[in-house]
């Protein structure tokens, strides 16, 4: 047992202080300092359980420190630091408080030793993150935020239901590996799946993230989905169903990522695809694959943040993020362009970049476990990622036909945030052992064998060749202004229409029934009035007798009922 407090405390306390501070250097220092302090604190905590709290007769363990929670905790602290550095120009207190509390909730959740603590922080991430969407302050963002909140809170409610049932079944609230089978574990699994953007539960990512503020999306992309990956890795490692769910996640959104015009939404679909890789790794469940999951979560947070920061910088200078409205920005934003290319190379898993050293662990884990079909699906997704994330995103913004826009280079603090992240993408790519030493299981895996490097280069260069060939033949469709139908259509259009249709019918039936009932009631009342009213027969002839008769009838009825029962 260790006597420690959760690192979430640093974030949550700072968010309270920031809420009362005016915009100043001190506030900025707090925003940058709290993730650093929390990160250093995590490095210093001994392994074990602790932070015991009594709540409603339950003993909660707010701290479970092991290598899995430490690696997620550290990358969350780093993501919070980078996100706050990138957003240093933002004066909106709501966004700053929300970002800190959101990061704190995510950090608290990965150290949760029991399901109740996990639930509390799980809901914390939902309630705090929505403000990063509403901070855009447009009608569309308001509606999108509401949808996001309903889905996130829904996930929490399902988790709570699962936890209650789990407690009734086992008498325990410990958050350890579970087996799918009972209603309780299914509820918990689905709750994790919603936040992990499982197929058909995924659209909140593509709906909400691009609707957030420029800096908000950088922060949003780091926490919620990776927290869900952590929860699945902790709760359901080796669950075979996850292999197939992950494979679908890795393949299907590629088509949407290619069609999509909004580059931030392209990256949201790309995020979904990379989550698929992680979910496959969790499903495989071997030490190699689970190391791959943790490594890819870290690496993905880095390169996705880098790409989002680059597109965010373009948006900050131009107000635009759609491929149809951008192009030719490499002339005036060369540093941002270079940094986005580093992000694209890492995302495409080029050797010497971070994506390669983490994806390689998952694909090797999958092939070693003998899942040939899924392994091929991951190859397919890797080739496709080169197209939409590696080529399309930087090309559309910086190299496509000149849009005529001549924006200034990104502000210094944004560039610093991108430079630090890009440096890590390269550093991890060249020296993978920096990352591997933090992984949950000991490993002597080396991604840099001739076979792995050559086959990966083959995959990427042949994919690039195909893209260039098809582009030269004008077979690649140009970007068009549009939105694309996805599963969210069911709850944004279909269900409201279905409810509207039935509501109309129910309303009419209610009106007819009300009319009939009112008509009957009026007749009864007017009948009584005519017999018992001041002018009524009973009143004029039997003033006392009518009352006595009524009481006699009621008493008789009472006696009969009493006798029968």
């Amino acid at each position, binding site marked *: 047992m260790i006597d420690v407090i959760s690192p979430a405390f640093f974030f949550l306390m700072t968010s309270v202080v920031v809420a009362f501070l005016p915009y100043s250097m001190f506030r900025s220092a707090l925003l940058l300092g709290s993730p650093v302090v929390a990160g250093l604190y995590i490095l210093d905590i001994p392994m074990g359980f602790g932070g015991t709290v009594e709540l409603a007769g339950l003993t909660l363990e707010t701290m479970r420190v092991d290598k899995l929670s430490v690696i997620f905790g550290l990358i969350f602290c780093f993501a919070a630091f980078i996100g706050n550095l990138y957003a240093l*120009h933002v004066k909106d207190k709501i966004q700053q408080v929300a970002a800190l509390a959101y990061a704190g909730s995510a950090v608290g959740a990965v150290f949760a030793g029991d399901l109740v603590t996990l639930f509390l922080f799980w809901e914390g991430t939902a309630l705090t993150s929505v403000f990063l969407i509403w901070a*855009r302050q447009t009608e*569309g*963002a308001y*509606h*999108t935020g509401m949808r996001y909140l309903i889905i996130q809170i829904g996930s929490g409610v399902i988790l709570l239901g699962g936890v209650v049932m789990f407690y009734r079944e086992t008498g325990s609230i410990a958050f350890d590996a579970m087996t799918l089978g009972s209603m309780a574990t299914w509820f918990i699994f689905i709750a994790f799946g919603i936040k992990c953007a499982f197929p058909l539960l995924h659209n909140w990512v593509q*709906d909400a993230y*691009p*609707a957030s503020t*420029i800096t908000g999306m950088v922060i949003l992309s780091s926490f919620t989905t990776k927290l869900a990956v952590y929860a699945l890795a902790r709760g359901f490692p080796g669950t075979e169903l996850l292999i197939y769910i992950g494979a679908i996640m890795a393949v299907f959104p590629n*088509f949407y990522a*290619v*069609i999509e015009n*909004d580059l931030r939404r392209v990256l949201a679909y790309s995020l979904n695809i990379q989550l698929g890789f992680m979910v496959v790794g969790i499903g495989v469940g071997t030490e190699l694959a689970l190391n791959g999951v943790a490594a890819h979560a870290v690496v993905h947070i880095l390169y996705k943040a880098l790409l989002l920061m680059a597109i965010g910088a373009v948006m*900050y*200078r131009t*107000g*635009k*993020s759609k491929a149809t409205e951008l192009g*030719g920005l490499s002339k005036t934003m060369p540093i941002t362009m270079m940094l986005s290319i580093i992000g694209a190379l890492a995302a495409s898993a080029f050797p010497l970049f971070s994506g390669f050293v983490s994806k390689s662990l998952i694909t*090797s884990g999958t*092939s*070693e476990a003998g899942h*040939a079909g899924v*392994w*091929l699906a991951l*190859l*397919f997704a890797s*080739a496709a990622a*080169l197209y939409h994330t590696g080529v399309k995103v930087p090309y559309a913004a910086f*190299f496509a*036909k*000149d849009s*005529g826009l*001549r*924006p*200034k280079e990104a502000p210094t603090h944004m560039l610093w945030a991108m430079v630090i992240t890009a440096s890590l993408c390269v550093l991890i790519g060249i020296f993978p052992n920096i990352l591997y030493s933090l992984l949950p299981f000991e490993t002597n895996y080396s991604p840099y*064998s*001739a*076979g792995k490097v050559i*086959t990966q280069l*083959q*995959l990427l*260069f*042949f994919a*690039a*060749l*195909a*893209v260039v060939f*098809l*582009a*030269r033949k004008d077979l*690649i*469709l140009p970007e*068009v*202004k*549009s*939105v*694309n*139908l996805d599963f969210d259509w069911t709850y944004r259009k279909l269900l409201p229409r279905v409810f509207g249709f039935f509501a109309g019918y129910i309303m009419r039936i209610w009106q007819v029934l009300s009319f009939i009932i009112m008509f009957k009631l009026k007749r009864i009342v007017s009948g009584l009035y005519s017999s018992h009213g001041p002018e009524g027969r009973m009143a004029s002839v039997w003033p006392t007798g009518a009352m006595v008769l009524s009481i006699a009838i009621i008493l008789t009825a009472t006696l009969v009922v009493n006798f029968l029962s």
Partner: protein
Amino acid sequence: MMDNQKEKNMNASHKQNNMRFGLVFKLLIIICSMLFVVEFFIKKKTSLAIEAIPGLHASTALVAIFIIVFGVRILRSVLSLSEDYYAPGAVDSERYPQKDTKREVTND
């Protein structure tokens, strides 16, 4: 007058891009050929039988891109709708608020 000049500049830049595209294509053919040949001379550690097939990664990449590009041609006709389809409940047809941006331009 200024607009014509600007359009000419943009077209010139587009032509330059097309030339670069051609160069990139030739370069890619050389690199891909080399990578394909090299695979026969290296020793691969494989776990699955299909991993040992020479050129598997290359062919998977080609097939994947062709499937996606041609799949997208079909899907776009089915899935794409106007930007204001979900308006006003979505941000797609909204302009990003000016207050959150600093739209500075260079002097050239």
